[in-house]
């Protein structure tokens, strides 16, 4: 079973963060804004200097070139960025055509210009852009923050199905307790400099 393992990780105000995310499972992180949830995800993606050891499936973060690590452990930021004019330019031909129906886009979305996308649409497309890379672990920073209630549930269901099917170890930053209830196998809350287990941990 694949595993995303954090040992004594410290970044920003957080220190001694240790947790394990088994493949196919979702570990939720919550905490007040500014408590360092996103920075922790960034440390796991190795985008920020940090202390401690992080490994996936036994392979340490520092054992592989950083870009290879990041294509295995893919992070989806809360505010996704789009740098080409057209949506389609951000996807390969094949992944563009295989856009899952669950995301609720018409097939011609690939021809749309990025500027006409709403923030919710960007967020949904960003999830597909990340999954299309065939990652082994996912780092999701409030993946449904810009979606309404109904869309949130549909995206959650689709994400969970993909996570289970592909056996992805998933760290999911969330603030809505109901959502955490629905998706989490384990839940940690940031309290000061520490991570507290709320339920479902070792």
């Amino acid at each position: 079973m694949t595993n995303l393992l954090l040992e004594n990780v410290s970044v920003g105000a957080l220190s001694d963060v240790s947790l394990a995310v088994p493949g196919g499972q979702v570990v939720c992180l919550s905490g007040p804004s500014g408590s360092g949830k996103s920075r922790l995800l960034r440390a796991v993606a190795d985008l920020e200097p940090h202390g401690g050891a992080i490994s996936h499936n036994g392979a340490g973060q520092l054992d592989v070139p950083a870009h290879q690590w990041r294509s295995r452990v893919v992070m989806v930021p809360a505010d996704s960025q789009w740098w080409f004019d057209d949506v389609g330019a951000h996807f390969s031909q094949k992944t563009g055509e295989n856009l899952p129906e669950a995301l609720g886009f018409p097939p011609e979305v690939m021809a749309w210009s990025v500027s006409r996308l709403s923030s919710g649409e960007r967020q949904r497309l960003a999830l597909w852009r990340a999954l299309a890379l065939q990652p082994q672990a996912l780092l999701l920073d409030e993946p449904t923050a810009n979606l309404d209630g109904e869309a949130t549930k549909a995206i959650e269901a689709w994400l969970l199905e993909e996570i289970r099917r592909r056996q992805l170890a998933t760290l999911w930053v969330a603030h809505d307790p109901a959502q955490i209830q629905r998706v989490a196998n384990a839940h940690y809350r940031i309290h000061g400099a520490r991570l507290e287990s709320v339920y479902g941990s070792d």
Partner: protein
Amino acid sequence: MEVIDLAWWKLALAALLILALAVTGHLSRLGITRSLLIAAVRTVIQLALIGLVLEALFASSAFYWIALLALTMLLVAGREVVARQSRRLRGWWAFGIGTGAMFVSSFTVTVLALTVVIGPEPWYAPQYAIPLLGMMLGNTMTGVSLALDRLNDSVWRQRAVIENRLMLGQTWQQALEDIRREAMRSGMMPSINAMAAAGIVSLPGMMTGQILAGSPPAVAVKYQILVMLIITAGTGFGALMAVSWGGRRLFDERERLRLDRLIKP
């Protein structure tokens, strides 16, 4: 043909025009008066001094004096490159990268032009070496500083885009690709535009000077072509090196974007 020497008091007439512009600028509150006057005074003093230096240098033509002048020109150009960046790398990196890029490109190209193309005796004859190096450095300096300024500023503004690209497993080179292209473009544009407009819109300064000094236009034109070609090559290679070294320094060994290495003076 003899060159008509200019008396110093005649230059004062030209300076009156600058004064008139300064007064007009002041009255209509354009906010350029101060920098205009300072720059004008600087140009007079600096050129008068370099005139004296060149007179002395032409008289001695010792290699080490020429090398010393070349080094001074390089260091001043390096300082200027640093000053022209609104955001620059911390510490000595900004100076080192700019100066290193200018050194490698302008000195190589100048020495090449002197030894292979022009071939004066000795190859470092100051009458050829100093003006050529001066033109090379002046233009490379513009190219390198424009390119580095654009690079640093774009990286600063597009932080989120670069990091999102990194999150998707791109290498730092891929994540920086568009910005690097833009930076090269803005460094190269002045040289490319100058080449495109040369002879039709503008008569380049060096050729004009040579013709004024009595050279046949056919010779002046050949020199001008040589100079424009080597200037563009030198600027291009200089900007290329500066952008790739500067870009490398903006990422660390784990390919993380390190904006903490940039400062706004």
